[in-house]
């Protein structure tokens, strides 16, 4: 019923004229849906079926398609970002969890959590180009800005694997702390951040011109009156000017604000419960957080570094992507 009502609203909105505002798409892991949010008005405009256990979500570089890791369907579902019509799926290998799309939009690199593989899928021919064996429980996927490297983190092996996108082989392995969840390069490609959920740290690596990583420091977190065990870094995003790193701290319900150059933790922003993944709006004015236990997302004003609102979404929100 609710879904129908929402669809009706959206139809009316479309009839009134093309919406120019940006959108955020949130996967609801338990609800099996995607919630669509207008990033001007912050209203929920739609909710549609996204496949079974939707987790990782991303958009094609032109913003016309939304890709979703439908973990229990063992494939990547594809949706039109304007009409939400489902397009032909992509093969992903078993249990896709997170993925990253290269800037050209051609290749998708998918972490297969149950199968110790990274699957490389061609989004045009919808075929699997390669399967790269990695450590146990691959999860985080990062890509260097020049698209030459894909970094996969394996949660039980506790490594960041650096995969060359030329020949799909691993060239470097760096041990990090327990349960690495996410890998994020700076926009200039000189630094890489890897979050470790159980280790409670963010490993910082300097990246040489030829892509070689050197572990330089581990950032740890501390909040008064919060047990250190609950400060569990998961999602992370860095501003394109390379100045600020935001780290979602899971069950502590906080997002850490880190000076991405000095690596000093500056502040903790209180958000919803079990904060998981993050995404900026394309203009980087806002940062959205998925809060899996409170079934909402928090909108953070990036310049002010404070939470400005929360928006109820579906059941157990996991990932978020924004488009213009």
């Amino acid at each position, binding site marked *: 019923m609710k879904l129908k009502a929402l669809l009706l609203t959206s139809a009316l909105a479309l009839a009134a004229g093309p919406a120019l505002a940006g959108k955020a798409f949130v996967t609801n892991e338990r609800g099996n849906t995607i919630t669509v949010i207008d990033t001007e008005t912050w209203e929920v405009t739609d909710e549609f079926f996204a496949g079974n256990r939707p987790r990782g979500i991303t958009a094609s570089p032109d913003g016309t398609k939304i890709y979703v890791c439908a973990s229990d369907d063992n494939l990547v579902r594809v949706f039109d970002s304007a009409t939400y019509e489902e397009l032909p799926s992509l093969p992903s290998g078993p249990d896709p969890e997170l993925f990253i799309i290269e800037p050209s939009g051609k290749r998708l690199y998918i972490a297969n959590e149950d199968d110790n593989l990274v699957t490389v899928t061609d989004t045009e021919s919808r075929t699997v180009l390669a399967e790269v064996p990695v450590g146990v429980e691959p999860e985080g996927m990062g890509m260097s800005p020049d698209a030459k490297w894909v970094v996969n983190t394996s949660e*039980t*092996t506790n*490594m960041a*694997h650096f995969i060359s996108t030329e020949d799909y082989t*691993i060239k470097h392995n760096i041990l990090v702390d327990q349960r690495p969840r996410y890998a994020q390069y700076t926009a200039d490609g000189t630094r890489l951040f890897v979050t470790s959920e159980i280790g409670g740290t963010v490993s910082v690596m300097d990246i040489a011109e030829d892509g070689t990583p050197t572990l330089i420091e581990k950032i740890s977190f501390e909040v008064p009156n919060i047990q250190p065990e609950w400060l569990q870094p998961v999602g992370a995003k860095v501003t394109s000017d390379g100045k600020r790193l935001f780290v979602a701290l899971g069950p502590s319900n906080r997002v850490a604000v880190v000076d991405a150059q000095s690596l000093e933790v500056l502040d903790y922003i209180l958000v919803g419960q079990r904060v998981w993944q993050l995404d900026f709006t394309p203009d980087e004015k806002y940062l959205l957080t998925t809060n899996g236990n409170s079934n909402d997302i928090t909108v953070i004003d990036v310049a002010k570094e404070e939470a400005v609102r929360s928006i109820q979404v579906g059941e157990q929100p996991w990932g978020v992507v924004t488009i213009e």
Partner: protein
Amino acid sequence: MLNRFATLFAAALLCAATLIFTAGSAAAIDVRAAVLRVDYQVQRPISRFDEAPEDLGFAGAALADQDNNSTGSFMGHTYETVKKSAAPDTADAALDEILAEGIRLIVVHAREEDVLRLADRAAEDGALVFNAHAGDMPMRNEECRANLLHTATSYAQQADAIAQFAIWKKWPRWVLISGSNPADIALADAYRRAATKFGAEIVEERVFEDTGGARRTDSGHAQVQRQLPTFMQGLPEHDVVITADETDYFAAYLTYHMWDPRPVMGSSGLRPVQMHGGHESYGATQLQTRFEELAGRYIKDADYNVWIALRAVGEAVTRAQTAEPDGVKEYLLSDQFELAGFKGQEVTFRDWNGQMRQQVMLYDGRITVSVSPQEGFLHQNAVQDTLGLDRPESACTAFSN
């Protein structure tokens, strides 16, 4: 279901066979470990869901080898675990065979007296032993051994996990029903201690004598349905019934056969476990699917205890670059060691008695009802130290900490 597992397993093998790694690595280390399981002549469990599978514990070792070898493939390390089962009177010979093979990292699944004897024999050859089964307190306290670490939770950790939940629920008035065998009595002791520690009151205790009664006979349920309510008659006001039945002969029957309807916790009803096949939080779904593909069944505590012992070894080899028993022990007891155990927080070892610090799942037979330590129980060092024997109480001197 089994077919599906078989197919997936075949696929996994195929996949493993084609692994090719190009990355550079540190010195090559070939790690050999063993699991020695002592099988006792015991009556069958009350429920056939609790029958011990033939590969009990061994399947956990197989998964650990698989996990460790995956990491090892990037490091130049290999892992192989020998699996042996023995009767109590052949366990020593089995251990000698293991030691004769040069293996010095040994996981033992046995009762306390056997673990201690085997650990002492292993110590003569400088081997490190992990206890993956016995919950008894003496082996962690005055009878502790320098070469013996425990991945199995102690009775105290189990009882404290239940006690914290009861206190959090504001159920402080307990009736304690224990069995009459030594293990039941030891477990009941842990519940008494837990009540004192967390401010609960045991308003009455009763012992349900093990007379070798009606278990598993066709009329078993009919018998207990008549016996138990009268046995539970005339108790003072209480909030919850705690059962201490390590032998597994009466507690499972008690839940719905009481005089006063109350929640039951301990050996039946809400039980403290290390891991169960229904647990999905903290990324455990992946542990479950990996285990089920390999074993074709759900994970049990023994599998988890063996798995995490060998994973801890793997972590020590990966980070400290050693498979020598002393080097492994030193690393595991150090501040550097931490391991993700699919329980939401890292597991570590207590450096005063070698006990693994871990969360305890409270399991109702289908789902994780809660996880202890409970919110609000604080500790100056690690919240997991609110469960079990803490440093100031420890009479263990073998660890010089």
